[in-house]
């Protein structure tokens, strides 16, 4: 708040010492609350599981290794499923499939939606109008319903799933990117860069993108959770990832009948989904608090 432009200190005076970026990040991490640490560690664990699934899993993804519905313990730490496949191994492979598809979908949605959103904010006019109206229509229907419609027409396959969800998600990303970029493009420094004669690439990459990065990162986390949950829901409904590919949503469906016998095997993949989304949300919560909460909300 205090203005270091006073009489006694002429503006020529050198600035004070400055902490390096790395030191600031380290200090930031040190102050992070337990929930954020927990979230970060969980995400890390999932990534490790997904990347090294074949090395970690005791059995193959679709190997029928034992009798159907074997109890916990022995060769099968978490028992076997209705076909006699190892539940633990399928859980580990499920991390790979479900996570991989969700990350891919989210990235695709951000590339298309984000770019179009920034362009719409920058150019305005008819380009913005057309994009926005199309997005309005797509957003006037819950995306799960639209996904169901498209999957019924084009059939359930992984590429179809990715393209459908990415397209539907891109509309949400478009909205956010357009709004975030919209508050930036009206600022004087964008005007200055434009009148200086800067190219479109420079405007997007150097002037706009760095300034909308933090809302976009938050949105990436939230959209990832949303996509992840949508894939799980679709697979659970039997129209998402198809067997024999291991996937948490369909694992819940396949083992759901066991719940009536007090068997919690079906709850494990559901818990795996829940744990990851909770972890991502914890990290986002902390990030939002760090980047905006302090200043905006007081």
């Amino acid at each position, binding site marked *: *708040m*205090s*203005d*270091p*432009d*006073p*009489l006694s200190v*002429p*503006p*020529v*005076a*050198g*600035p004070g010492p*400055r902490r390096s970026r790395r030191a600031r990040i380290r200090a930031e991490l040190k*102050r992070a609350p337990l929930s954020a640490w927990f979230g970060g560690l969980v995400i890390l664990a999932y990534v490790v599981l997904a990347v090294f699934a074949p090395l970690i899993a005791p059995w193959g993804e679709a190997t029928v290794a034992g009798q159907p519905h074997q109890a916990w313990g022995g060769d099968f730490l978490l028992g076997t499923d209705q076909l006699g496949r190892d539940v633990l191994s399928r859980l580990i492979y499920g991390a790979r499939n479900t996570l991989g598809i969700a990350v891919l979908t989210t990235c695709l949605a951000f590339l298309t939606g984000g770019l179009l959103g920034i362009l719409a904010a920058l150019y305005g006019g008819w380009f913005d109008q057309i994009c926005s109206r199309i997005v309005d229509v797509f957003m006037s229907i819950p995306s799960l319903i639209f996904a169901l419609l498209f999957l019924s027409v084009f059939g359930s396959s992984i590429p179809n799933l990715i393209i459908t969800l990415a397209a539907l998600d891109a509309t949400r990303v478009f909205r956010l990117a357009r709004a975030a970029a919209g508050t930036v493009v009206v*600022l*004087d*420094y964008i*005007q*200055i*860069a*434009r*009148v*200086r*004669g*800067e190219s479109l690439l420079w405007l997007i990459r*150097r*002037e706009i993108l*760095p*300034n909308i990065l933090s809302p976009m990162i938050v949105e990436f986390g939230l959209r990832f959770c949303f996509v992840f949950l949508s894939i799980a829901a679709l697979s659970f409904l039997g129209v998402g990832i198809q067997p024999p590919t291991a996937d948490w949503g369909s694992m819940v469906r396949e083992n759901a009948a066991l719940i009536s016998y007090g068997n919690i095997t079906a709850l494990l993949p559901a818990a795996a989904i829940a744990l990851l989304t909770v972890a991502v949300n914890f990290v986002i919560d902390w990030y939002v608090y760090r980047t905006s909460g*302090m*200043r905006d909300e*007081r």
Partner: protein
Amino acid sequence: MNAENTDLRVRGAPLLQIRDLRIEGFSDDRWHPIVRGIDLELHRGEVLGLIGESGAGKSTLGLVAMGYAKPGCRITGGSVTFDGQDLLAMKEDERRLLRGARIAYVAQSASASFNPAHRLLDQTIETAVTHGLLGRKQASLRAIGMFEKLRLPGAGAIGLRFPHQVSGGQLQRAMTAMAMECRPDLIIFDEPTTALDVTTQVEVLASMREVVREFNTAAIYISHDLAVVAQMADRIMVLRHGKTVEEAPARRMLAEPAEDYTRSLWSVRALAQPERSDTEICLKIDNLVTGYGKSAKVIDDISIELQRGRTLAIVGESGSGKSTLAQVISGMLPAWSGKMTFEGRPLPSGFRSRPRDLLRRIQMIYQSPDTALNPRHSVAETIGRPLEFYLGLKGAAKQRRIKELLDMIEMGSGYLDRLPGELSGGQKQRICIARALAAKPELVICDEVTSALDQLVQSGILKLLSSLQAELGISYLFITHDIATVRAIADHVVVMNQGKVVEQGPKSVVLEPPHQPYTDLLLSSVPEMDPDWLTRVLKSRRATPDAAS
């Protein structure tokens, strides 16, 4: 000490007494002191002016006089006594009964502080009715009476309106009426006229002063503008960095300020650019018409001339079209019709049809350095970009030139890797100037470049711009609403009102009488460093009622 004691005995116990007050605010994960040990005393019927720059702690202090700490602030020491009661030791409910009833508040932005969902009258009488001080009917009658006193048009009906249906100046008066409704002992005015145009400000100030005097209400008047405070206050207190710099009766403060800092508060007014000889014409604009979209005409048939190495000031209130003019010249807004000539060649309308070298020769500096600098670009990147983009400088040559430019704006090379967020307002504006200079321009358009800055910083920037002009021979098109700034920097002046030129010519001609009626209204509305200024202006306006309309 002795003198103070006698004073106390004569006038009785003070209405408000603040002792060694300390307040801290929370930002960047830490508590920072905002107010560091301030003493203050206010007697019944007395008006105290609190003045200081942004961040001096004056608004925080004003709210604490109501026993209210802003969210994110905490009171860490001292006492606040109102009419013998310790405000800080009270229960919240007891304080609540004082607020609005015995201590009232008038906020800076009336349009944000009136609830958009309720009618003005309902909001005005709310405190009186809910505290059970007056009946609804009685309260309404009293409010309407106060609207009349404050010269609100259609006083009987205006209370039925919603805030968005009323202009800014009228809202500010309605808020004063709301504060006066319970006939409080004390009113806190927090920069009540800062958001208004000068011509509006005069009337609002006059009506506020009138009611405060009539009801013998004590008041704390907070402002950054000493000339405004001088009209309102009996006594003035200058704050800086949360401490009292100087305190004295208003007249004495203006006549013989004791501290250097106090004197520096009107340093802009002390600057004066002597008029210089005529030179060739650099920029010529003929019959320019433009506006936004296709129908909203903002500028209507304007012709002006700017001489090389000289400064042309464009003066006007908000809505006069002066900033739009700057946008047309810089190419951000295309002209509908008219001709622009720059250094003897026609200047294409719209920046897209100008070659890069032409873009380089006309640079612009903006009002708010906060939004004019990309917060993610360091000082070196900001200044370096035009060097690279226009002049093709790279590597060591670029670095050398950046350092030269930093020296020119009187900042050292220690700032090279700073981000704008780490600089003060004045420093940011200097970086903007350096960025404009980096392009080696011939014409620099300065759009209200000093109006977002504190007085002291303003004079520094104006001096810098003057000396750069003398050194580099740049022409300035200087857009401002502040007459003092015009005196400080301009050679020629254009007065604009509602998209038209009212008067133009050399500074000595335009600023000295006889004036056009609008110029006269504008000039006479600018507060002067004279406690009798407001009285004088009002007297002359009432004598010739035509002047105001």
